[in-house]
């Protein structure tokens, strides 16, 4: 099987997983909007939580995977690892866009402001801009080795920010709520809401896997094209 064939196969599997995840997303939307009760203090806006938190989860997973693959690339110097790291970074930026748009839409009715420059929000925006820079850098660098080395360094630096962002709500005075699930004690959420959140987390994780496989397949297809052109010339 050629590189092109295996990339096309990977892309098809990724597309299948993505379709499955979208069906799951539709079910989560129905559960969250129709069957999950409205929170007494925050009203319907609290339900934004069921897309904002899973999007943040997937974004931080994607960026952590980029960082780990970047370390692996710097060690092994395998171009496929660099392509996988770049794939995860792009998917991470897509999820981070959801996180950074749904957050302010929740903040306006609950905090009374779209945005505040506190530690959690500012560090998250910084991480997003860092990975937008990562993608721009990859777009402008022509030499594949230089591109892979420089982006791997940014990938590792971005990953270091992830635990810092998680801990900002404990380290600084911030408007952002503290974690209610990812914390040492039991989740402080009623059962019906917790099931909705966990279902959404599962669906967003599946979306990440489907997107990641497709984006990696795209990188491999482009790589195969470059190899074919190099062999032809």
């Amino acid at each position, binding site marked *: 099987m050629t590189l092109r064939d295996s990339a*096309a196969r990977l*892309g098809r599997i990724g*597309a299948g997983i*993505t379709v499955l995840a*979208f069906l799951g*997303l539709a079910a989560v*939307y129905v559960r969250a*909007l129709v069957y999950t009760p*409205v*929170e*007494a*203090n*925050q*009203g*319907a*806006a609290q*339900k*934004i939580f069921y*897309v*904002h938190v899973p*999007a943040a989860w997937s974004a931080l997973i994607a960026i952590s995977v980029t960082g780990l693959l970047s370390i692996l690339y710097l060690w092994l110097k395998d171009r496929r690892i660099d392509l996988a790291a770049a794939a995860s970074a792009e*998917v991470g930026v*897509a999820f981070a*866009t*959801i996180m950074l*748009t*749904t957050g302010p*839409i*929740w903040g*306006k*009715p609950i905090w009374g402001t779209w945005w505040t420059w506190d530690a959690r929000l500012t560090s998250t925006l910084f991480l997003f801009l860092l990975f937008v820079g990562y993608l721009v850098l990859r777009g402008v660098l022509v030499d594949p080795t230089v591109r892979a080395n420089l982006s791997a360094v940014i990938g590792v630096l971005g990953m270091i920010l992830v635990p810092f962002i998680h801990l900002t709500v404990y380290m600084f005075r911030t408007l952002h709520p503290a974690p209610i699930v990812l914390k040492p004690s039991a989740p402080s959420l009623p059962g019906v809401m917790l099931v909705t959140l966990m279902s959404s987390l599962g669906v967003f994780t599946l*979306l990440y896997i489907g*997107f990641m496989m*497709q*984006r990696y*397949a*795209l990188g491999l*297809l*482009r790589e195969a*094209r470059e190899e074919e052109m190099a062999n032809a010339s």
Partner: protein
Amino acid sequence: MPPDNRGFMVAAYVVAAVILVGYALSLAIRIRAARRR
């Protein structure tokens, strides 16, 4: 009585869906173009 902020909820769900569907379509289009080359 909870506050009436349903519009914000709807906006957030629509924005999330548009970004996810948009990204899925962009992947599908780019993969199809890369396969044809």
